C-alpha cells in the first residue's frame, strides 16, 4: 500500500510494525513468526472493525482511492485478448471513455467505461475519467457496434461527473448525455452496469442504463458530489462529509431504495487492498448475468429494461418506500 486514507491510521501503523518486524527477522536471523502472526491477526481485525463502521464520507474516499482497480484492470482481467476502439466519428477521441471487445468465457463481450488513470500522467491524459460529449457519443456508437457483434455490453461507471468544460458545453454535453439516456433503452444486446467507483451524477448515468445495475460495496452513486452540494448550499465544501450522509449515496442506501439490483462485496479492507479478489468477484457476476440473459429474447429484454427504469424511483414506488420508512 502506498496511500492510506485518514481513517486507516491504525492499519498503517500495524502494517509498518509488521514490516519492521519482518525486516528485523531477516536481518537478525531470528524467528519472530509468532509475534508476526499475532500482529497480522490484529491487523485483520482492525481492518474488519474499521470497514464495518464506515461513514458515508469514508466510503467516498474509498470509492476514489487511487489504488482502487480501474477500468483497464478489469478489461485486462476479463478480456485479455481485447481490441479497443476509438472515436466518435465526428470530432474527437475522448480518452475519458475507453472501450474494448474481447472474449469472455468463449464469447465476445464489449466493455465500455470511464477511464480513470492509474497515475497522474494517465489521469491527465484521460481527463480523470471525466468525459466530454465525444466520450458519450463514442460510447453509444460502440454499444451499437456491440449489437452488430451480437455481444453483451458491460458498462463500468467510475467518474466524478461529465467534464465541466467550455468545449464540452459548445459540443453539447447535455445533448450527448440525454441522447444516450434515451438510446440505451434501444440497444438490443444485454447491458450490465457496474458502478465500480464513483457514480457521479449525469456523467455516470450517461453510460448507466442497462438490464441490471450493480454496485461495488464501497462504490458511491449520487446526484451531486458531497463537496458540490455543500458548495452550492453553503458556498464552501466544509460540510461535504455531512452531505455524504444526507445524500444517501452508498451501495447499501441504493439497494434499500431499490435503485440497484445488487452489491458486489469487496475484499477485506476494500478493493484497493486486493485487486485479484475484486476482479474475480466481478468476473463471476458477469458470468451470472450472462446466464440470466441467455433465455431472453430481444423484445422481452428491452421491455423489461424500460419497465425497470419506469418503475424505479417512480412516484408510487418512492411513496411506498417513504411511508414504510417513516
Amino acid at each position: 500500500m502506498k496511500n492510506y486514507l485518514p481513517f486507516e491510521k491504525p492499519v498503517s501503523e500495524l502494517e509498518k510494525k509488521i514490516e519492521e518486524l519482518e525486516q528485523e527477522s531477516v536481518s537478525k536471523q531470528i524467528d519472530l513468526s509468532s509475534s508476526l502472526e499475532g500482529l497480522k491477526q490484529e491487523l485483520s481485525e482492525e481492518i474488519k472493525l474499521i470497514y464495518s463502521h464506515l461513514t458515508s464520507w469514508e466510503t467516498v474516499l474509498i470509492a476514489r482511492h487511487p489504488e482502487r482497480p480501474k477500468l483497464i484492470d478489469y478489461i485486462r482481467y476479463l478480456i485479455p485478448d481485447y481490441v479497443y476502439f476509438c472515436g466518435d466519428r465526428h470530432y474527437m477521441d475522448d480518452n475519458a471513455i475507453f472501450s474494448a471487445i474481447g472474449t469472455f468465457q468463449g464469447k465476445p463481450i464489449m466493455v465500455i467505461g470511464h477511464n480513470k488513470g492509474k497515475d497522474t500522467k494517465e489521469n491527465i491524459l484521460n481527463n480523470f475519467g471525466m468525459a466530454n460529449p465525444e466520450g458519450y457519443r463514442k460510447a453509444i456508437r460502440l454499444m451499437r457496434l456491440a449489437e452488430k457483434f451480437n455481444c453483451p455490453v458491460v458498462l463500468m461507471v467510475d467518474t466524478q461527473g461529465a467534464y465541466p468544460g467550455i468545449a464540452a458545453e459548445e459540443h453539447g454535453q447535455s445533448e450527448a448525455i440525454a441522447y444516450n439516456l434515451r438510446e440505451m433503452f434501444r440497444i438490443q444486446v444485454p447491458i450490465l452496469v457496474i458502478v465500480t467507483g464513483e457514480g457521479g451524477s449525469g456523467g455516470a448515468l450517461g453510460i448507466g442504463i442497462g438490464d441490471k445495475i450493480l454496485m461495488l460495496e464501497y462504490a458511491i452513486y449520487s446526484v451531486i458530489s458531497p463537496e458540490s452540494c455543500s458548495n452550492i448550499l453553503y458556498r464552501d465544501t466544509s460540510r461535504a462529509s455531512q452531505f455524504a450522509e444526507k445524500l444517501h449515496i452508498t451501495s447499501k442506501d441504493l439497494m434499500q431504495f431499490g435503485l440497484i439490483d445488487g452489491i458486489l462485496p469487496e475484499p477485506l479492507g476494500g478493493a484497493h487492498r486486493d485487486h485479484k479478489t475484486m476482479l474475480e468477484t466481478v468476473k463471476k457476476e458477469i458470468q451470472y448475468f450472462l446466464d440470466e440473459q441467455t433465455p431472453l429474447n430481444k423484445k422481452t429484454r428491452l421491455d423489461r429494461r424500460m419497465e425497470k427504469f419506469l418503475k424505479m424511483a417512480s412516484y408510487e414506488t418512492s411513496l411506498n418506500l417513504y411511508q414504510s420508512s417513516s
Partner: protein
Amino acid sequence: MISFSKGNTPKIVKPQEKNIENPDWIKCPSCRSIQYAKQLEENLSVCPKCNFYFKLSASKRIEILLDENTFEETDTDLSSFDILKFSDTKPYTQRLEEGIQKTNHLEAIITGLGNIENTRVAIGVMDFDFVGGSMGIVVGEKIVRLADKARLNHTPLILVSSSGGARMQEGIFSLMQMARTSAAIGKFQEQGGLYISILTNPTTGGVSASFAFLGDIIIAEPSSVIGFAGARIIEQTTKQKLPAGFQTAEFLLDHGQLDKIVERKNMRKLLTRLLQFYSKGKTKA
C-alpha cells in the same frame, strides 16, 4: 400550509404578494427602468425598454400558449415528500412549502392536455419559482405520465423547461428521473410522436441533460441560459475565461444545439404552424 404525511393530498394556501411595498411597479433587473406591473404582464413579462425576459409562471405560460379554457390539468394530486429527510440551510419540507406558496402549485411542473389553435396537445410547463424548477420524483413522474398520455392519445407533446437541474434534496431519486423521463420520451417518439421542447431561462443540469434536449424540435427563448454545468464551476475547473455569451440560447444556436430561437410573443404562432404541418402530414391525402 401543507401536510407532508404519507401521501395525503396537501392543502394549498394562497401565495403571498411578492412586492409588499410597491406591488404595482417592477424594476427591470437588466435596464433598471421601472415598469408598471400590469403593462409588463400585458407585454408577456418582457421589458418593453430592453427586451429583458422576466421569468414566467407556469400558469401564465399556459395562458399564453393554449386556447382559452382548454387546459385540463392532470396529476394534480401528486405532491412531493421528503424521502431523504433532507435539511440544509432549511428543511426540504420548508422549501416545498415555500414553493407552493410562491407558485400556488404543488410542484415545479404543471402538466395536462389542452389545445393550441384547436390542435390537441399534451403539455408540461415548469415553474422556476418552485424550488428552482428542480426535478425530483414528482416532476419526473408527471413528465413520464404526460409522455404516456401523449402516446396513448396520439397528441404531440410539448415541454417548457425552466430548471436549475435535478433536485439535490431528493438525492439519487432525482438523478433517476433523468433516466425515467428519457425512457418515456423515447417510447413516445419511437411510435411516431412529435415532441417539441421549449427551453426558457434557465435550463441547466439534469433537466438540460435529459428530456429537454430530446426534442424532435428544440426551441429556446432569447437570451436564456442553457447548459449542462454551471458557469462558475466551469470557470473554477478550467481556469479559463468563458467566451462572450457562453451558454446563452444564441451561443447554443451557433453551436448547432437548437433549431430556433423564438420570441415569447411569437411562440404560440410558431407552435400553431408546426402542429398544423404535423397533423396535415399525418392525415391521409
